[in-house]
């Protein structure tokens, strides 16, 4: 079976601005694939390139193995769900869902039948005759999904469709989208700047920054094994300490930092003398009163400046000697008091060393 979508050296430029640079990617059929990145990183451009609204400046987009160059969005086997949904307000819910079928000249009775089934699928069976404006946010969302599914696309493209919903509904819709994808079995390509959405829903995630796909992998690998400083700091919270590598051994490396010598994993193979960044997740940090022996950790001292209790977790912000702020997330136990000086420690295997980009 051919891959659902293949990007082969795709570049998109607008004048001097490079929106997407050298995207090479294969998205498998039936996958829930997310593009994750901050706004302006080129993810929406890439989505519009796949759907056919933008022709790549260089490179090819293949869908189901077929080259899509010169094929407009109305003749591609994709369906796009817009950020604002773009439902047709002058049509009823049923007419909205049936629009793609009507365009394709599907006979009325057949169309009605299909629309009815789709309405049941998205739990809107009673709402077919209503105007779109009479629906709630979540219901509109489901109409948009049904409208896109009606044309039986090979690939469903979703452009941050949940961003307009409130938190509760957003979390509910995540599960629902995932369930729909499992049920219909087609490829979903999802665009988001919300790492929570990407991590919970996706089979695989492509993290994008400034037009470049920095890393592709499943949620776990993107979170636990970031390969670039951008991915490390964008996906989840991360503390970042600059320094220079002084020693390398057994997959670990020692970094000389303003806070002292710190040790972390060295997956990208840095050698001594290189400028590097050390990343430690807030939840990997442990806080103990200064002077207490702390086993196999490395660390430094800091003063707690803010303690934010959130119920299940507590976020502690600490100021270290250099003035930098370090965040630690504690699961429970004894909570430090604001103003207290603490030893911040972590196990070397929880520290991650990555090359410092030249530009920074």
């Amino acid at each position, binding site marked *: 079976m051919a891959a659902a979508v293949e990007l082969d050296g795709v570049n998109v430029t607008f004048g001097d601005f490079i929106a997407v640079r050298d995207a090479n990617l294969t998205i498998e059929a039936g996958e829930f694939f997310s593009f994750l990145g901050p706004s302006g990183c080129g993810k929406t451009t890439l989505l519009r390139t796949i*759907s*056919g*609204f933008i022709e790549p400046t260089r490179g090819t987009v293949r869908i189901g193995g077929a080259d899509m160059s010169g094929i*407009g*969005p*109305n*003749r591609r086997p*994709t*369906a*796009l769900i*817009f*950020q*604002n949904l*773009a*439902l*047709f*307000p*002058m049509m009823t819910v049923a007419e909205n869902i049936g*629009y*793609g079928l009507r*365009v*394709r000249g599907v006979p009325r009775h057949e169309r009605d039948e299909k629309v009815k089934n789709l309405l049941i699928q998205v739990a809107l069976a009673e709402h077919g005759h209503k105007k779109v404006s009479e629906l709630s946010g979540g219901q509109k969302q489901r109409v948009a999904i049904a*409208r*896109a599914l009606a*044309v039986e696309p090979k690939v469903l493209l979703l452009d941050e469709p949940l961003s307009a919903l409130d938190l509760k509904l957003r979390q509910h819709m995540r599960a629902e989208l995932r369930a729909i994808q499992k049920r219909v079995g087609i490829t979903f390509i999802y665009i988001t700047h919300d790492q929570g959405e990407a991590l919970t829903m996706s089979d695989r995630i492509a993290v994008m920054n400034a037009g470049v796909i920095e890393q592709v992998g499943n949620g776990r690998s993107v979170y636990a094994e970031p390969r670039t400083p951008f991915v490390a700091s964008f996906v989840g919270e991360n503390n970042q300490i600059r320094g220079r590598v002084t020693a390398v051994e057994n997959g670990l490396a020692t970094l000389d930092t303003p806070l002292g010598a710190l040790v972390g994993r060295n997956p990208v193979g840095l050698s001594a003398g290189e400028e590097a960044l050390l990343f430690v997740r807030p939840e990997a940090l442990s806080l103990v009163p200064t002077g207490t022996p702390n086993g196999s950790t490395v660390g430094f001292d800091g003063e707690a400046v803010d303690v934010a209790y959130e119920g299940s977790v507590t976020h502690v912000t600490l100021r270290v000697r250099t003035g930098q702020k370090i965040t630690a997330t504690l699961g429970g136990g004894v909570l430090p008091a604001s103003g207290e000086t603490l030893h911040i420690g972590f196990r070397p295997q929880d520290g991650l060393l990555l090359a410092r980009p030249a530009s920074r």
Partner: protein
Amino acid sequence: MGATGGLTLVFGLPLAVALFFFALSAYERRMGLATGPGFFQRNGLAVGLYLVLAVGFWVFFVIVLPQFSMVDMSFRPKLPPSQMGGPKDVFTLENYRYFLFGSTTSTASWNWIHLKAFALTIGVSIAITLFNFALCYPIAFHMAQSAGAARLRILLLLMIIPYWVNEILRAFAFRVLLSSGGIINKLLLGAGLVAEPIDFLGADIGLYMGLSYAYLLMMVFPLYSAIESLDRNQIEAARDLGAPWWHIHLFVVMPHAKPGIASGCTLVFMLCAGALAAPLVLAGPRTLWFTPIVYDRFYQAFNWPQGAAYAFILLVTCIVFVLMVLKMFRLSLGEITR
């Protein structure tokens, strides 16, 4: 009516209107019908009173009274000034009878000349409205959805600047352009496309062109503002769902722009049917447009009551026609003002 009586009317009537509104607002307040701060509470008594008086004055003396007096006049016989208000000044339908039968007394034969001119005016106005819509829709769509800011500015200027030239001058310019010795005929002759000059003016082509052009903006702007408010994502969504371009226009853009379409068409139709300059200057010698007939009733025949009746017939016909069309497209009058 004496001088004091007239003065009483001029000042008393607006005052009476103001008092009426004041009483109405007080009544609604007491009955709990009105909510929020009242009109006079919001604006203060002085400003509120001024607003009511000024607007009342404007509406009554500038809009209602002249129209009403024309309607009143249309139902009276033509009389020398000395007999006005005399025993012969009675209400009559003779002016309307004249329009239909060409005589104030007999109903034996139809007034074909005027009836035909009337039908022609309405018919051609409809045709020009449709033509203008067909012409302006693509322009408006381009301006609203695809043109960049710079292009939009240039297009707007190109459309507005020619309107600085006054209407009569423009009509004569068309005459010059389209005459037998005009530049268009010269070009056609020079290119060998025609053997002898085409009589554009005699065939009324000049009239149609002049009328279409005169009200172009009246069509473009309502369409533009209606289409401009359409979310471009809707067009893209339709395209993404497989719709060809004509389907998108017919079933996505036009339904959205319906109020703008209705308002543009209403304006163009009304103005076309009531146009005077273009028909006077550009109509062919064999064409009789209705507005010049009305004009002639007033200034050639010196029959103001008949002129008033003719004008009133045109007005009522146009309003009825427009309301019928709005009804057909399931639009309320309020919607076209959006």
